[in-house]
């Protein structure tokens, strides 16, 4: 099953690339100072930063990964949105933005320097810079692999071309160019995926029809089966879902990750900065319908395209056998797959089998849906949307990296007193350097999958405790730099130890856990283990930060003005209609959130 894009599809893709590059060229003349390049001169209106806030995070993990998760776990995947994103987005907008934006910090690590000290900032800046380029590399690898598998494109060409395009527009127009393109990409992804959900749902007979076809009640309810891990396909229970995902991981990402916070920092006023994540929350809440539903549908429809049947109630498996003509490098075979999700194949092209069951390649669920339902014309649009998601993620990483590198590492430690033009130049150099390292990382990921797994595990340990540090930093003026630094190290260590002595069921000791020699607890699933690792890391960081802070000298109140809740004036939203006020937006978002959870209970 392989699509053959026509001239029309290539034209759509070509036009998209032209506009993306064009935006970079037009913006070049506005890039006069380093503040223009790294902060867009703090001049962007809220609706643009809001959509960019959402889109920067809308990388490969989102479109491909959430579709895969939908196919695997069903509508429970929506917890990654409704529990794992929206509450944190409301919190960062209402309560944390006053300190990020109000302190005039140019980056998240710089806030840590203002609030705590140099070493806390250094730790955060360096780990963030390293993580950013590597995760960008991992997603590049995923894209290259996907385009190769799906369309037969050349892996090297796919990676180099996309990296060069992202390089061109971020190099020319800096953060503004990245943000503007993210808005363009946001609309492209939405407009490209709406027909997919529509056609898919129509084919299976709507939500009711989809429920009937899936035939597994646990996959069509988000909360009903969270009482015990064995009752639901994710293998987690409500407490670790709420605390691990909903609190530690979600707040750790949305409230402290410079990749997203940078978008809000570019806003034209404090009110706009605070409204940025709240505006982003509206489309974010509805994204499950665009990215999760297609994945769920992929598991239950038939590959009518290749066998010539129009789709109907014919069982998927019987049909997919007609489609088997495969081999390494050939078209994707659906034989042994489920619906239109193909099995993973080994090097000889045979389906992988584990415990007597075929291992499915869930990452192909959404791409196969595009191939299944989009005729030439719309197919080009769908492929554009797919590439847009990869590129917006890549550009987000690139702009976050070049700011942190230039402001927090280069200006912080290497060359403190250069001219503004020099830092602007360094930002552009960092863009080239960062993308070059990412491309290299993509090839490392291709050669040594295990190295990347280990790296991502280490990143998870580093990230897990972060939110405790920011929470105490912003809301407890007694917290000290020594406390924060020790807390971060302690939290990371706790994550590593917890992961090292536990194991998900059915796994062997190694990257999955248990590498410290003893396994004291077995979790029902990998996800449950991850959530609990995060909970342990956060609690450890929180406790250590408080203890060490109480033993060390606090900074005088005068130095903490604008950095800590108790010593900062409450932001006043004057000149705004009532419906534009951040607090009102937050209430509306929460109401819709409750309704959505109730519908899909």
């Amino acid at each position, binding site marked *: 099953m392989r699509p053959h894009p026509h001239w029309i599809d290539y034209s759509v893709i070509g036009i998209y690339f032209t506009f993306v590059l064009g935006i970079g060229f037009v913006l070049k003349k506005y890039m006069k100072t380093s503040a223009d390049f790294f902060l867009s001169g703090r001049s962007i209106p809220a609706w643009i930063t809001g959509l960019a806030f959402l889109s920067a995070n809308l990388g490969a993990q989102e479109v491909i990964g959430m579709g895969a998760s939908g196919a695997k776990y069903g509508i429970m995947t929506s917890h990654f949105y409704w529990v794992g994103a929206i509450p944190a987005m409301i919190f960062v907008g209402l309560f944390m933005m006053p300190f990020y934006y109000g302190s005039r910090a140019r980056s998240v690590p710089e806030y840590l320097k203002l609030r705590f000290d140099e070493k806390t900032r250094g730790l955060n800046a360096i780990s963030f810079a390293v993580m950013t380029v590597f995760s960008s590399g991992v997603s590049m690898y995923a894209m290259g692999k996907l385009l190769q598998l799906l369309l037969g494109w050349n892996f090297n060409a796919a990676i180099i071309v996309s990296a060069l395009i992202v390089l061109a527009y971020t190099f020319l127009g800096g953060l503004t160019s990245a943000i*503007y393109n993210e808005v363009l990409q946001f609309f492209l992804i939405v407009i490209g995926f709406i027909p997919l959900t529509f*056609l898919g749902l129509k084919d299976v007979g709507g939500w009711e029809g989809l429920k009937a076809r899936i035939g597994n009640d646990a996959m069509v309810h988000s909360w009903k089966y969270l009482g015990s891990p064995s009752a639901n396909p994710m293998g987690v229970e409500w407490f670790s879902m709420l605390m691990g995902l909903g609190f530690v991981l979600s707040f750790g990402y949305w409230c402290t990750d410079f990749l997203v916070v940078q978008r809000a920092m570019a806003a034209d006023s404090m009110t706009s900065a605070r409204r940025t994540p709240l505006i982003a929350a509206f489309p974010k809440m509805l994204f499950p319908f665009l990215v999760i539903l297609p994945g769920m549908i992929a598991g239950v429809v038939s590959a009518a395209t290749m066998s010539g049947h129009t789709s109907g109630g014919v069982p998927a498996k019987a049909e997919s056998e007609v489609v088997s003509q495969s081999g390494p490098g050939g078209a994707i075979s659906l034989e042994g797959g489920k619906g239109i999700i193909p099995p993973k194949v080994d090097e000889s092209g045979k389906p992988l089998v584990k415990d007597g069951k075929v291992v499915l390649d869930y990452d192909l669920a959404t791409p196969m849906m595009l191939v299944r339902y989009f*005729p030439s014309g719309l197919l*080009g649009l769908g492929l554009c949307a797919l590439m847009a998601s990869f590129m917006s993620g890549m550009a987000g990483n690139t702009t976050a990296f070049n700011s942190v590198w230039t402001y927090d590492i280069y200006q912080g430690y290497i060359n403190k007193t250069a001219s503004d033009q020099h830092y602007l130049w360094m930002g552009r150099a960092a863009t080239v350097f960062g993308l070059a390292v990412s491309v290299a990382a993509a090839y490392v990921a291709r050669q040594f999958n295990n190295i990347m797994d280990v790296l991502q595990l280490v990143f998870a340990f580093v990230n897990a405790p972060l939110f405790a540090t920011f929470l105490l930093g912003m809301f407890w003026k007694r917290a000290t730099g020594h406390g924060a630094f020790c807390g971060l190290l302690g939290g990371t260590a706790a994550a590593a130890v917890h992961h090292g002595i536990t194991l998900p069921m059915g796994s062997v000791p190694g990257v999955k856990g248990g590498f410290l020699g003893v396994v004291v607890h077995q979790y029902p699933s990998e996800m449950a283990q991850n959530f609990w690792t995060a909970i342990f890391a956060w609690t450890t960081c929180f406790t250590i930060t408080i203890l060490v802070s109480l033993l060390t000298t606090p900074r005088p109140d005068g130095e903490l003005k604008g950095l800590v809740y108790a010593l900062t004036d409450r932001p006043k939203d004057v000149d705004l209609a009532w419906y534009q006020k951040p607090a009102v937006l937050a209430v509306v978002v929460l109401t819709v959130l409750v309704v959505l959870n109730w519908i899909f209970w």
Partner: protein
Amino acid sequence: MGFDIRLPIGMMFSVFGVLVGAYGAATWDSEMYARHSLGINVNLWWGLVMLIFGAGMLLLARRGAVAARASDKTDKTLKNSIVK
């Protein structure tokens, strides 16, 4: 920032709309719609939707530019009157 993002968005989707919509009209009888999109000519319909969306964005960009020029003018007259 002196450059309105709604302009390129509007232009791109208008071009997409015309291109994909026209392709849909030209392939009206194609069996690919039966094979892929449940017999619906999605190219034509979605092309029209994209065209409307693109045109709407262009309209907003145009109104924004007019408003900006107007406020620019009042700024200048204000300044002039202060100078005088």
